[in-house]
């Protein structure tokens, strides 16, 4: 049986208590779901919002939501509607100075690429640069695919944050 494993984004509101994030992560992996991305931060009061992207078919997606509700400190589990959402991820990409390298791509091409993707150069030194790009996972993935691999020193990504648009609010 082939299963259609689409990527789904789930927004999980929890009490901000020690161990809750690890309970959520452990449950998702233990029940056999592939986690693509995770981000978490305190929101208001004593609550934290965790955003996870998982690969799952529709039936498993429903099951994972029910299982998440079994964690005592989980307040609300909301699937993010792919047709009706705002989604962002931020990536820092540390690249070597291209001039003097064997790469056919020069610094100017790199800067153009950053400009095309609406990114910023947030650090520039003779040794190299740090670019910042925000957007969907796809956008960041394609930005990364266009930078020659031998120039990339380090990548740091936040994981996605997502929210349903009005009127279907998350809370």
């Amino acid at each position, binding site marked *: 049986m082939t299963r259609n494993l689409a990527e789904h984004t789930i927004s999980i509101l929890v009490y901000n208590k020690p161990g809750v994030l690890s309970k959520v992560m*452990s449950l998702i992996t233990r029940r056999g779901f592939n986690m693509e991305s995770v981000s978490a931060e305190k929101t208001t009061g004593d609550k934290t919002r965790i955003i996870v992207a998982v690969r799952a078919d529709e039936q498993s997606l*429903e099951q994972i939501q029910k299982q998440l509700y*079994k964690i005592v*400190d*989980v307040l609300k589990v909301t699937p993010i509607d792919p047709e009706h959402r705002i989604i962002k991820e931020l990536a820092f990409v540390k690249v070597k100075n291209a001039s003097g390298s064997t790469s056919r791509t020069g610094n100017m091409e790199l800067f153009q690429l950053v400009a095309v993707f609406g990114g910023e150069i947030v650090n520039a030194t003779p040794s190299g640069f740090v670019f910042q790009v925000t957007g969907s996972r796809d956008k960041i993935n394609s930005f990364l695919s266009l930078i020659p691999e031998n120039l990339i020193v380090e990548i740091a990504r936040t994981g996605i944050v997502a929210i349903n648009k009005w009127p279907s609010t998350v809370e």
Partner: protein
Amino acid sequence: MTVYNGARIVIECLKKENVDTLFCYPGGVVIPIFDELYQHGEGIRMVQPRHEQGGTHAADAYARSTGKPGVVLVTSGPGATNTVTGIATAYIDSSPMVVITGQVSTRYVGTDAFQEADITGITMPITKENILVREVEDLAPAIKRAFHIAVSGRPGPVLVDVPKDVLLAETEFTYPEEFSLESYKPTYKGHPKQISRAMDLIAEAKRPLILAGGGIQISGSTDLVARFIDRYAIPVVYTLMGHGVRPSDPAMSVGNIGMHGTVFGNWAVQNCDLLIALGTRFSDRIIGDTVSFAPKAKKIQVDVDPAEIGKSVEVDVPIVGDLRNVMAKMLEMKRKKPDTAPWLSELQKKRAEFPLTYSQGDDIKPQFLLEKARDILPRDLIVVTDVGQHQMWCHQYFDYTLPRSFITSGGLGTMGYGVPAGIGAKLGNPDREVVVFCGDGGFQMTLQELITIRREKLAVKIVVLDNSFLGMVRQWQDLFHGKRYSGVDLGGNPDFAALAQALGIRARRVEKPDDVEPALREMAASKEAMLLHVIISKEENVWPMVAAGSSLNDVRTS
């Protein structure tokens, strides 16, 4: 204002929760609690097992047989990790427990200190909730939370980990009157529209069947379900955990479902047109192959845990709620009684066609032993089992007419459960006869708890069915692995009767079929604990059987 240290607070919280029995084993970091128990433990019976695993199984069985949470107190590190099998056993069978573990002082947590184990990390997947208490002010609220969560909704074990410095720190003691948490609100009331839809399906059904799961006795609805069966003349099949429903007409009970269910029980499931699943999670051991399971039936499922609905089997009418409320509501709604007479007579024919059978021999057949036990032991008996072939025979050969009277490790299948579980069941039900049936393999995993039985002067009766094999594994090797009996031969077993006597338990060895009845009568008459070491035929298999993952249509009877 009452100021106590954390250790005293633990004891006072247990008193507030009316805990009468505490399964406890001391160790370094929990000495302060034992010190407070020594001075202020009035009203709490301290039961000290020989091993923390035994204490945890005993607490679990106390809970299963009484409905009250079982309470365990152990030390940090190995004391805590020794409870893990017991916690997992309770978790999968929805048995309420509160396990209090000592922990190294907060300043040592995370430093690999002596007897340190990350028990909240270890038990995360096998507890309903676990809490590491970091401040003494949080201790009483944590224990309140633990008891509340353990018994409410779908019950389960909760672990509270208390570092030594928290046990020694002092604070004002007040026990929270109530527990409420926005994120924890089990659904108790079933949705009226769904219940009404279910009743419509029932009224129209020609071949309805109730599938009785463990949730019936957990929710205290055995009587309501029996009334429902009586009123609508709907037959019922039982899962391993679902025994204890007693319809007025015994013919309404059509046996067991699943791998070692009866032929007609499984036939009923495969041929019904409406399956009413009450408090069952459709374990793989009962449904066999998912696709061909109950193919002709519309399905109604009632469960307090929404995550169990549609997890393994798709249902037409899901009802999330406490079965007790849902059943009461279903009984309130008046609907036409479906005409089930033809269906019932068909089932009776199947029952007559496929009785449970076995052939007598010169040796003691386990089925013969259990038939005799059923006839000789009191009707209100509590049967406790270990895991394996004898467990399935107990499932088949006793008539369970009372709730909470068949105590067995269903989901986890924990060998070694039987003897300590007998302790918990007897402590919870001192006026009822408690008999543990145990294989020779499982018996040897926790037999040191015979010492606890003697020390606590508990009249627990134990029947060891000894075939000198790990019988269930041997059966699978017989049927599916060309009789290559690998790792299952227990030949050279000790003389268990002599062993029991050495531990201070009255005992008798039984080797011939003619000796079975007198031995059982002697055991039944005994006012103190007694063990029967019964040598049974070596290679008896449990029949009927549906191979793992096969359709319930493919029941083998030999």
